[in-house]
């Protein structure tokens, strides 16, 4: 089906819905892949359910989320309220991690994280926890909603107004920052506008400011003169410019490419022929994000071998997946601190372009830190987490074997964490570690249960530190 290098793919095949057949059956590997990309990995129950109900129902469920979403949103808002009044961004980071870990709608949180990286805004400049929280709520509200509305609302968002200096954009002294990024990074991409468009568009956003931490329009500071933007002339205001961007044919393609990179591949470069059919449907559906995501997740391309385990897990994704698959709960304040050195500080992307992502997440230091995080979570001896994510409890819960051998436990954990994706080269590592664990001399007072639990934790740690687990 792949007609050449770098994805000269037949678009019709690519975006047609995947249907299991004997050549390409619905397997635990595919179920795991779906949950890695559209949720935060699958725990054992989710894997088994997905395997049983097939791709269509599994994707439907991921798109709608679990029960109690509204109540969860209300609870999350109540938790955030006192934190948003403070000045400690660590608490807000921890709050979002808590929401990510506990939300019944993991896809919604994944999309919220995507938009956080798309409309990358950092509290390092905004310096207002309340505004950062409200932006996060806005991104969540529209995460699977309408991109048109999202772009309009982000433009008025108080954190964004500070982040891209719209608050300093006055009549006679236009600041081009927001107009530039709106076109370059948020909607069109380079090559679809010129410098004159930016200068003229900047004038349209004059008078946009903040009062009592909320958007406020000051007509005295607004330039209401004629502006010519992308070939059209009028006394445009800010929202008119946003609409001009949304009406531009490049906008849908730009967003589709973004979602392609997020859900399918960060390294493969899709040509316009592959993107355009999706972009056309995105336009037809009035920028409905959920429908776009639905097409992507159900596609043949999404389930093709070329995109399987072809993405590097971002630090948040890595840590949350780990906790979710272990069916644990963590102190998210501690977790927020641990994610910093891994390279992803929520509410503080490094620039307006967001995190580079992909292979950039990994180097010798971050790999070591990922290993340490795995050890801290699974050893049950780290006082920050103790037994909250204990692999031994997990095996007892799900393995339907009265007295499993170490080999059986290893097989279960490999199926859970990697869905059996253990290369033959890695297999020898398992054999060696299992042998070592079996031969090890344990303290005389250790019971057989103690020894088994210790071995289970050691094997779980080994699997979670394999290169394969770093990939989504």
């Amino acid at each position, binding site marked *: 089906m792949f007609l050449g290098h770098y994805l000269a793919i037949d678009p019709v095949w690519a975006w047609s819905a995947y249907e299991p057949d004997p050549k390409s059956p619905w397997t635990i590997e595919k179920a795991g892949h779906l949950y890695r990309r559209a949720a935060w990995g699958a725990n054992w129950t989710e894997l088994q359910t997905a395997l049983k109900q097939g791709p269509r129902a599994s994707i439907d469920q991921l798109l709608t989320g679990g029960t109690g979403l509204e109540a969860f949103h209300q*609870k999350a808002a*109540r*938790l*955030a*309220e*006192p*934190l948003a*009044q*403070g000045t400690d961004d660590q*608490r807000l980071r*921890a*709050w979002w991690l*808590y929401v990510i*870990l506990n939300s019944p709608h993991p896809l919604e949180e994944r999309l919220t994280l995507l938009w956080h990286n798309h409309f990358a805004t950092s509290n390092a400049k905004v310096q207002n926890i309340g505004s950062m929280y409200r932006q996060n709520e806005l991104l969540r509200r529209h995460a699977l909603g309408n991109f048109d509305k999202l772009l309009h609302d982000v433009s008025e968002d108080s954190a964004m107004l500070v982040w891209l200096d719209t608050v300093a954009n006055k009549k006679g002294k236009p600041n081009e920052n927001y107009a530039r990024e709106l076109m370059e990074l948020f909607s069109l991409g380079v090559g679809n506008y010129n410098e004159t468009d930016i200068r003229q568009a900047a004038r349209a956003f004059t008078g946009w400011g903040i009062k009592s931490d909320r958007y406020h329009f000051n007509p005295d500071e607004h330039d209401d003169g004629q502006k010519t933007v992308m070939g059209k002339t009028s006394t445009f205001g800010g929202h008119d410019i946003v609409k001009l961007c949304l009406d531009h044919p490049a906008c849908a393609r730009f967003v589709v490419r973004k979602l392609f990179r997020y859900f399918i591949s960060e390294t493969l470069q899709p040509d316009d022929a592959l993107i355009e059919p999706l972009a056309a449907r995105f336009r037809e559906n009035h920028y409905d994000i959920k429908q776009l995501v639905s097409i992507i997740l159900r596609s043949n391309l999404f389930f093709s071998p070329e995109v399987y385990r072809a993405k590097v897990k971002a630090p948040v994704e890595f840590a949350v997946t780990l906790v979710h698959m272990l069916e644990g*709960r*963590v*102190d*998210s*304040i501690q977790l927020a601190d641990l994610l910093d050195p891994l390279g992803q500080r929520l509410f503080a992307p490094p620039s307006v372009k967001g995190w580079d992502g992909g292979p950039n997440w990994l180097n010798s230091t971050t790999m070591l830190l990922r290993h340490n995080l795995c050890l801290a979570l699974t*050893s*049950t*001896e780290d*006082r920050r987490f*103790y*037994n*909250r994510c204990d692999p031994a409890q997990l095996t007892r819960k799900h393995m339907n074997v009265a007295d499993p051998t170490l080999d059986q436990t290893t097989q279960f954990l490999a199926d859970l964490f990697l869905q059996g994706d253990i290369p033959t080269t890695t297999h020898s590592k398992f054999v060696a570690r299992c042998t070592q664990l079996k031969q*090890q*001399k*344990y*303290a*005389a*007072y*250790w*019971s057989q249960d*103690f020894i088994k*639990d*210790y071995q289970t934790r050691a094997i779980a740690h080994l699997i979670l530190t394999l290169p394969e687990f770093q990939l989504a």
Partner: protein
Amino acid sequence: MMLPRAFCVLLLLVVGASRFISADEALVQPKQVDPLRLVPQNAIALFHCSQPKLAVDQLLGYVNRLELTRFDEVQELLNSTPYQRFSRYLQYLEKEYDRPWGKLLDDITGNGLVVAVLQPDEPKKQPQVLGAVEAKDAELLHRVYLAALEFIKQEAESAENPAKATTKNYRAVSITSLGDQFCLAQHGSTLLLATTARVMTKAIDQLLDNKADSIHQHHRFVPTERPRSADLLGWGWIDVKYLKDQAKEDIEKFKLPTNDLLPHLLFGGLLDAVIRSDHAWIAIRADAQGPAIELTSPVGRAKSQEGARLLHMHDPEKEPLLPLLNPPGTLASTSFYWNLSSLWQQRDKYYKEGALKEFDEADKQVKPFLAGNSLGSLMNTLGARHRLVIATQRQSGYKSRPKTAYPAFAFVAECTNPDQFSKIIAVPLRTAGFFFSTQVNMKLFDETYHNSKITGYRFAENEKNHGYDQGSLFNYSPSFARVGNFFVISSTVELCKDLIDEIQLPTSASSVGDHADLRQRFSWSALSQAVAAERPLLVSLLTLRHGGAVERVDDQINALLKLLDRLGTLDLTIHHSPGFKLELRANYR
């Protein structure tokens, strides 16, 4: 930090399995001996516990009494792998030695334990540490010691970076070293733990020869001064002179007269005790009320530096300290002796010549702010007994609520000439108010409350003031009032009124009949009220910590509030007469 942890672990390990031990090994007969004799003269500090079992029982008693196991954090600790392993180890020991762990602990440590910090071998090196445990049952100790060595090797196998265990003999006593920072040995009823082989061999010499190199020969170790009482859990001794010799230059700075009086103004009595002490004792006690720590030194008021004595030390022949003030919602309350008039009248005893001139110069400069009066005349109108109070704000005179609520606080000064004091102090207080009113919107008011005139300021509840540090101004309504012989300066008018009510009670001005120089009380119960006021934030933070359901966190907060209430108060008392004594005592409910 390393040693106490290693010490505890090894103490437990040492109570190990005996199945590896041959029963016919030669054993030294146990005898009633104090491990203190093994502490050498070069000890800097030591801690002695004569009945470790009793101390552990008492500690567990408090855990039960405070119902700490109701907390998820505690439950998590108890369910954690390290604790489960420890618990399993205890079960194993109970089975192997056929006795409950309490009895086991008593048999192994029942004749006492001591931990001593020793002078380093060379200057600027780390001090060494020696631990000694005396067993009631020497045979048991011997068996479990050898078994423990076996366990240590087994534990090391599963450790990430196991320390190598090596064994060598010294005078027929086997010493096992773990790495280069820890070694242990057992002989007869004695178990020894040390940070270096040198310390260990000296301790073995002392154990075998019982020579005269023991702390008992140290001239600053005076056994008659040692803390004693029925409720004593353990006691300690500190060679203060040795520590002072290591910091001679710093200590010199604190001697009077000085150029830097601030530390003396705040902590002069304590500094004086440190400067004059050669050694100090620590006692840890536990009774029905709760645990207490006591620090004592034989230095008393009599030979104190004159400046420190005049400023901070209560004269036993004069009126004793005033009782602590306890308005509703009191978080912390202090009553102390602070004779500022002595500072003025005998300032040459405090200040060196240069600083004395600066002091006199400053006195001239403040005159315009004191309506032409000198600082001295203000100080001369002050008494020597004052009180400080911090209390939760039960009610506020503002409709607006600050985003962060701070407690109210007040200083209650005793005056020898209250009319004169009120007259002089009113000028700078009003001037400060006027100056501040140029920065924020505030209004001066006078109010008569229970025959006392209160002068205060209230901030206008307008947008400007709301924007000032997230409305933090609405935590305050600065007020002052004269009440009989006392002058109240309070951060809120509400606290000022509460204090007026309390000061007017006859019991408030009367003495408590003791000769303490400072009393301080911290109320956990009031803290519980303050915590309850911040419940939404607490729910959020604990939910993030817990990682689970909010409903569970709600239960935990209720348990926390109950615990705070049950913790009662924490009392600090300082006496300078006859000797120095600082006591910190918990009063559980």
